[in-house]
């Protein structure tokens, strides 16, 4: 394999990993844009989405013998819907009971509450998932169902191997990005979100139900995180209760990198982070180029961006409250 195809191979690897980060990062950024809260429990919402999809598969009677078209057109969407339902429900519950009571409290309070929710959700899944009759214990990793036609399928373009799971992840991000753009810019709820993020008090005076808008923001973020959860399950073929921690941390980094509060920034930040990690593994010579150092390079990039462009790559949401 020559250097050029190695470059494209790592580009594909990076873009598909970055798409996963981006899908999760949107949830951080949407919520931050509206309530200025870093929702540290968002990584766990992503984890709940994956476990929700797995639960859906269990409830369907663990179908394994479906053919490829049926699996892709029926089984996969059903799993995604199940995952989205689980994570949106959990996200709305946490918003209602962990964040809303603290909305006018000092900003540190909801942040601590978010950490509490994060620990709570991890432990709840770890301890109680296996107590549902017929469900495997979540104390260690659970194999995620494979979707014929996607799991383990790859094709060659030139010298580059493209896995179907990567296509699915990148495709999911593309579809979600279009949907999100339409939702924010073209629907009433979306525009209410923009208004609330610019000035919640005036938005309320204009007749916008701010509570509903905040719930919408949590729901949108959770839905995307659940799709990321399914993509994660398909890519790595197993899920565990701690998967949200590191993924959430990386996605948060992506959101900051792109400019927190800026939805486009979250997508760009995620992709940049993924590509930098993949490229650093291969193209930095010597001992600093091994996979062990990829996170170092990712965070070096973050520091550089924050030093020279503190608002992030695409610029943070600028709130004018004069």
């Amino acid at each position: 394999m020559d250097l050029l195809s190695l470059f494209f191979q790592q580009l594909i690897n990076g873009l598909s990993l970055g798409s996963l980060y981006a899908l999760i990062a949107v949830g951080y950024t949407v919520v931050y844009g509206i309530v200025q809260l870093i929702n540290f429990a968002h990584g766990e919402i992503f984890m709940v989405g994956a476990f929700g999809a797995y639960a859906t598969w269990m409830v369907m009677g663990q179908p394994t013998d479906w053919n490829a078209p049926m699996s892709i057109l029926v089984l996969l969407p059903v799993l995604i819907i199940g995952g989205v339902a689980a994570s949106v429900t959990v996200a709305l519950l946490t918003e209602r009971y962990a964040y809303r009571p603290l909305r006018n409290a000092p900003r540190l309070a909801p942040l601590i509450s978010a950490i509490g929710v994060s620990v709570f959700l991890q432990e709840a899944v770890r301890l109680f998932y296996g107590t549902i009759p017929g469900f495997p214990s979540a104390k260690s990793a659970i194999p995620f169902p494979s979707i014929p036609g996607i799991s383990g399928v790859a094709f060659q373009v030139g010298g580059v191997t493209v896995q179907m799971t990567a296509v699915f992840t990148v495709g999911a991000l593309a579809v979600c990005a279009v949907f999100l753009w339409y939702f924010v810019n073209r629907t009433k709820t979306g525009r209410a979100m923009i208004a609330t993020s610019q000035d919640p008090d005036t938005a309320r005076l204009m007749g916008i139900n701010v509570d509903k808008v905040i719930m919408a923001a949590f729901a949108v973020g959770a839905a995307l995180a659940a799709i990321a959860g399914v993509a994660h399950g398909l890519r790595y073929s197993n899920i565990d209760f701690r998967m949200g921690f590191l993924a959430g941390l990386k996605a948060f980094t992506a959101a900051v990198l792109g400019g927190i509060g800026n939805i486009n920034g979250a997508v760009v930040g995620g992709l940049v982070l993924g590509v930098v990690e993949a490229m650093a593994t291969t193209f930095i010579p010597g001992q600093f180029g091994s996979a062990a150092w990829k996170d170092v390079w990712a965070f070096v990039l973050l520091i550089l961006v924050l030093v020279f462009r503190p608002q992030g790559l695409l610029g943070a949401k600028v709130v004018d409250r004069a």
Partner: protein
Amino acid sequence: MFKRSFKLAGVALVAASLAFTGCGSRTEATTGGSAGAAKVAKIGVIAPLSGDLSALGLGIRNSVDLAIRQANETNAIPGWKLELAPEDDQATPDVGKNAATKLASDDAVVGVVGTLNSSVAQSVIPVLDAAKITQVSPANTNPTLTKGQDVANPKRPNANYFRTCTTDAVQGPFAAQYLLDKGIKKVATIHDKLTYGQGLVAAFSEAFKAGGGTITAAETINPDDKDYSAVISKVKPTGPEAIYYGGQYPQAGPLSKQAKAAGLNVPLMGGDGIFDPTFIKLGGADGDLATSVGAPVESLDSAKAFVAAYGKAGFSEPYAAYGAYSFDAANAIINALKVSLASATDAKSARQATIDAMAKVSFDGATGKVAFDEFGDSVSRVLTVYTVTGGAWKAEKTGELK
């Protein structure tokens, strides 16, 4: 992981530490019926009883429990009743150190079976050594634990430490020999940067190169990572005929699966750390290989009694890869206790005598002959190569490294 989160946000660090300390589920084990006014001596277990490696850790705990029950039933040490004191180390050195400190402060504890991870052992051994508590590991394979940092000029660092398994100094070269015999001359190595993985890969690489093989790439992964596509893409162009992985099955299973999905269709070989059914569940494919210490437990006559007794005892978890070694480790301690406790008035005063008695222990255990050399290593150098066939581990070749 922690260092990174420092740079990112101190808050995330708090979240992490909370999340991790929240994981300590303790399982109280029961021992056999009490024997009236008998004095109590405790044998501790330090192993991961929760988390990814709990399948192995619970097997260790149960097997020690079984040995203790049998000793109590047969009244192996007259006047004394043995009890089990299991502690969870969560496969984490710091947690293991706390567990060791807790056991050391319990005057009734005379011996400890554990740990599973060599990295945890490094922090546990000094604590137990200071308290003169005998430690026997069924699973630590890193050579430096018994021979010191300079393995070429061995110097035993801790007199209290013994093990019933063979070491990476035997396991790595055994794997290298097996691959060379199979005609595989080009291998890429990947390890997880932990004590076990690094040591295993180092021992393997040295023997493989000495035998005429080529290491095409030497890479590492992050044990917290789920995505290995970048490192696989880097290794693939070097054209390896096999991947040798130093680490544990939670990473090895997905690594094998991702390698094959990325078109790197070569077997993945590892040490005893990947020799577990969970490896296959998590993505290990047919043709993947593992070396493990000793002969297959099911094939040894001496092991059949253990397997039968374990089945009868009604544990809810299987004995896993180290069950028989843990059983032997516990019995080695019990054999030493027969000597040291015979004239002792209390358990604490017998600690040093137990260490002294360990050197003379020799009996036929579940894994074969159990005895320790001058460094505390098992005298057995028998290993087995297993291969995944039809979704299960099958013994391929058992041999002794000369």
